[in-house]
């Protein structure tokens, strides 16, 4: 959390330290940035994080394996299912627990719907960040949230909750998809897809939007690899790495889809990657509904008490592609019913770190455009 001493004061033609956040509408949560400015140019950016630190990793050492999956859904609160998905994958891998095929497909189904809803939040808030030029600021935001609301209603009907679906269980899935819901999913995919050209005309089709995002916050290929940025941010820098393709989990080995990438590495490229990923995800949910295999969704024996789930000792790392990138869990087990150590490899943490490298040299007006294009979720950064 330490911001270090701020000894810079304004002098004539000198340097100015500008404090942005933690209460600032375009920091997407409680991020504080100390910007050292020379005129309009940023010469140094110091992010200060930790305002949302909840000690999830410490808590993990005090709860049993079966109690933990819902806890992680609160980390990245725009795509909760991805968090518990990565966690149950790691535990299943360490404990050699089999997952029914239908459950694997259903996990991918909910993850892809949440990817669409998360990308819609990102697009709407990017519109807010870029402000007045985009139809008074909130126009794009409202159109995106209209579509997202339909997805949340659908997930509520499927799982009982709009957001923290608690969909993933160790060894299976909690809710099944029946024929009526499958039809609703197809109708919803068609309606969201129909809205995409409208959203694009308000963002990518707007010359002012392109002006504000092109060549802004450029991340080179080498910087992207060294810092370890991930997800759409990595793919926009010319590295087509997607965990779903490179290390397939759940049903992704059986599902056909394209990995979207761009080479420019700027905010506009990141915007294009995410916009295309919405289409890919909509295609994926359709093919999951079409090819959903029959069978059980949960195959573990019922437990008398959660302490009965003992995981063999060892170390494991399992990752999923969350909307923000590679979300991994590194679990060290000592053979008891609770993890000895659990580390969450949070994508937003790594993506946010890159701002110390890309903000200096740019204009202060581009700071919010750069931050918005990185799509950090502070719950994920601070854990």
């Amino acid at each position, binding site marked *: 959390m330490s911001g270090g001493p701020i000894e810079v004061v304004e002098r004539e033609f000198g340097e100015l330290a500008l404090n942005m956040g933690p209460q600032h509408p375009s920091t997407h949560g409680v991020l504080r940035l100390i910007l050292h400015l020379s005129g309009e140019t940023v010469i140094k950016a110091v992010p200060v994080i*930790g305002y949302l630190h909840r000690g999830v990793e*410490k808590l993990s050492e005090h709860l049993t394996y079966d109690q933990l999956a819902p806890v992680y859904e609160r980390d990245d609160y725009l795509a909760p299912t991805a968090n518990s998905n990565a966690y149950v994958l790691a535990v299943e891998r360490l404990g050699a627990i089999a997952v029914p095929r239908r459950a694997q497909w259903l996990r991918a189904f909910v993850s892809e719907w949440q990817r669409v809803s998360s990308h819609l939040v990102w697009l709407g808030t990017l519109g807010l960040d870029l402000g007045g030029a985009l139809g008074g600021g909130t126009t794009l935001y409202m159109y995106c949230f209209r579509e997202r609301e339909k997805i949340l209603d659908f997930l509520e009907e499927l799982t009982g909750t709009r957001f923290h679906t608690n969909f993933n269980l160790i060894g299976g899935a909690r809710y099944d998809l029946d024929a009526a819901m499958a039809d609703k999913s197809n109708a919803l995919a068609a309606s969201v897809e129909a809205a995409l050209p409208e959203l694009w005309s308000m963002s990518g089709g707007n010359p002012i939007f392109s002006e504000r995002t092109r060549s802004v916050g450029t991340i080179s290929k080498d910087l992207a*690899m060294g810092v*370890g940025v991930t997800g759409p941010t990595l793919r926009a820098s010319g590295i087509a790495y997607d965990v779903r393709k490179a290390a397939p989990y759940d049903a992704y080995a059986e599902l056909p889809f394209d990995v979207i990438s761009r080479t420019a590495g700027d905010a506009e490229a990141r915007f294009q990657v995410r916009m295309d990923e919405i289409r890919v995800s909509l295609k994926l949910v359709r093919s999951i509904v079409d090819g959903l295999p029959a069978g059980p969704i949960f195959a573990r024996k019922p437990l008398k008490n959660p302490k009965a789930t003992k995981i063999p000792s060892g*170390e494991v790392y399992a990752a999923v592609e969350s909307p923000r990138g590679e979300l991994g869990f590194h679990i060290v087990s000592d053979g008891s019913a609770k993890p000895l150590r659990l580390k969450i490899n949070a994508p937003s943490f790594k993506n946010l770190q890159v701002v110390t490298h890309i903000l200096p040299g740019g204009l202060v007006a581009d700071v919010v455009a750069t931050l918005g294009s990185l799509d950090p979720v502070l719950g994920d950064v601070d854990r």
Partner: protein
Amino acid sequence: MPAPEVVAALRTRFSATPFALGVELPATELLTALRALRDAHGYRYYVLGTGTERETAFEVLHAVRNLESGDTLFVKVAVPKDAPEVDSIAFVYAGAEWQEREIWDLFGVGFKAHPDLRRILMPDDYPGHPLRKSFAMDTPWGYRPAPAPEDAS
């Protein structure tokens, strides 16, 4: 999971012992081994840094990846508890800078020659390092408030 030929190459050059996710090295060889992994073996992508507290020592882990082959390798070093300090790799992988700050913040393991070793998640004046096993999660007043006294009347 890690590529067997890279593990074998590390074992011939360094005194590395393999484990499930990668190799374990003596702390003195950490920097040279990671430089070799980055420059000679193509492991240019930094995945994560983390720590574990064992009974006898702390463990610091760095995970790096070769994006061409998709292979992820964990490098583990043991850090003694009485002098918890290890070389920083932030100059080899820029991404390690924050991850090492996090390990310092939560475990109290120091990093030699780190460019900016400050707390990152906890407040500056926070007492102790919360992920150590000796750091109790109890608050002075306990988890639950004491039950209300029975109504006398």
